[in-house]
């Protein structure tokens, strides 16, 4: 553009970053959430390199030690350092959370928008499919899938995605249905956009904020789901460190007094779910232009 006046509104990426900084500083809770998210990402990326012990190395002599200077989170029944396992487990749990959410957003989100936007038969078919999945008790469906296809991480991700499919369809469908007759959608039709193009370039970006909130919640549930599966023996294969399975195995030791085995992975799980929930609201502020005054 010709005029490069000192404009109060920087353009493009700079605008988003400036706005992001603004949102973080404005709402402290969101600031904390971002801090927590950063911690999770660092643990996920650098985990294996920064941990004091090898998460898989067992040391039966030092089994079941309470938290001490050498082992900050104590050791488990095989003498493995719980602190190292909790840190290294971040990568796997974040992967489970992120991939299952991405998968369910792609499938459920798009299907929801299509059924909300096109209505008619598309709406009925997708509605019935999501009803069928809804009729299944969520957890049993996950168990069925994992039991049938084997308890690999991919199957856990697929199972979580399928469970949350109806939720995403419902949210996307109602948001798309509201915007179907909006002025700017009619305008897009006037200027020759095809229905699918309108759906992807106009409707989808506008419902991103709401979907963002939903995605952040589901990330929490994805990890809890993996933990539940581990509790009944269908979770991640040993000896891979994963919060869910560590809590499940540690749970048996609560009564006998070794509280730390289950507590620390439990706290890590809580930390992650907290972060995702608080993040959801923060993300909504950033992505939602209305707040970008």
């Amino acid at each position: 553009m010709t005029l490069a006046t000192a404009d109060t509104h920087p353009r493009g990426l700079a605008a988003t970053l400036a706005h992001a900084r603004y949102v973080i500083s404005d709402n402290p809770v969101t600031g904390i959430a971002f801090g927590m998210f950063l911690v999770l990402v660092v643990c996920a990326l650098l985990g294996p390199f920064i941990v004091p012990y090898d998460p898989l190395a067992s040391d039966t002599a030092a089994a079941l030690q309470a938290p001490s200077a050498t082992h900050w989170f104590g050791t488990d029944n095989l003498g493995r350092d719980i602190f190292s396992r909790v840190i290294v487990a971040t990568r796997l749990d974040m992967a489970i959370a992120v991939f299952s959410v991405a998968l369910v957003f792609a499938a459920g989100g798009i299907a929801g928008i299509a059924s909300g936007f096109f209505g008619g038969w598309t709406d009925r078919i997708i509605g019935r499919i999501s009803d069928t999945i809804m009729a299944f008790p969520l957890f049993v469906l996950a168990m069925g899938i994992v039991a049938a296809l084997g308890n690999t991480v991919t199957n856990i991700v697929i199972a979580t995605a399928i469970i949350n499919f109806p939720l995403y369809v419902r949210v996307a469908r109602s948001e798309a249905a509201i915007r179907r007759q909006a002025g700017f959608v009619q305008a897009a039709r006037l200027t020759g956009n095809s229905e699918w193009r309108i759906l992807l370039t106009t409707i989808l970006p506008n419902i991103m904020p709401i979907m963002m909130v939903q995605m952040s919640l589901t990330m929490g549930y994805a990890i809890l789901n993996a933990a539940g599966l581990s509790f009944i023996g269908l979770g991640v294969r040993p000896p891979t460190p994963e919060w869910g399975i560590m809590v499940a195995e540690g749970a048996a030791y609560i009564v006998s007094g070794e509280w730390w085995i289950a507590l620390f992975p439990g706290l890590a799980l809580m930390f992650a779910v907290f972060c995702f929930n608080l993040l959801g609201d923060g993300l909504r502020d950033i992505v939602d232009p209305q707040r970008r005054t």
Partner: protein
Amino acid sequence: MLKLIGSRLATAVPSLIGVVIVTFMLTRVLPGDTAAYFAGPAATAESIAEIRTKLGLDKPLPVQFVDYVSALAKGDLGSSLSTGQPVAAEISARLPASAELTLAGLILALAIAVPFGIMAAVKQGSWVDHACRLITTAGVSLPVFFTGLLLVYVFYFKLGWAPAPLGRLDVFFSAPETVTGFYLIDSLIARDFETFRAALAQLAVPAITLAIFALAPIARMTRASMLSVLSSEFVRTARAAGLTDTTVIITYAFRNAMLPVVTTLGMVFSFLLGANVLVEKVFAWPGIGSYAVEALITSDYAPVQGFVLAMAILYVILNLLIDIAYGVIDPRARSEA
């Protein structure tokens, strides 16, 4: 209202059919080999094959499916291999246990989460709002079985307040004679308050565990819908007309805010049924969840099929109730079906 029920059932039929088909497929994919199990440990190859023909497992899948559906039509859900009992009998015995636990959990969650949601909305941004968000999120951020075990450890093992996690009733009590299958209600009908108290004590901790897990979605939904209703114009009119805060918040705002909450109850209930499976394992609760889990793990698919069908029907009935409740609260829903 009849139109409402008619159209809701009409939409439920295809999803029920979907459930039947998917269960059939899912169970046929389970790794275990029923015939081998049936033939017993020391069986030889040909005796396994013989059992397989006897059970009709060698027929092509579509034929098996037709058999299954025709048996279903006659109400025969087959028998479970692991327990030998007919599935229909087991489900009818175990369903009330799970239903009682899940409903108790749900009612408890509603009793806590809805007031929380309202207070958080009315005093938005205050410490109450943040406290509500922190507590409900904390509740949902721990796996349900861990909360259960923790509660057992604290309330039973350490403090001794709660009774032993030994299922629905203390060993030395006999179950009240079944009317609804819900021990609480049956014992009240039988005027047997001692059993009622014992059953209530047994139900308390598992129900709290489930409730904690369901707080977050309900509280969040209540807060969101209360916020939007409180900023609506008719609330402003009510305030301008000088109505007291309680009338404005409860009779005007709250009743409108309950509508979206009621619709999410369907989702929360099936979400709880899933979590219930784990709670049953922790509290040795003779519910339908643990029964299905056992069957699933041992690839004994008759109970799994029966269980999922029962859940599907329960889900359809539940949605019907929610629609009716919605119709009761919101007259607009009553007019156009």
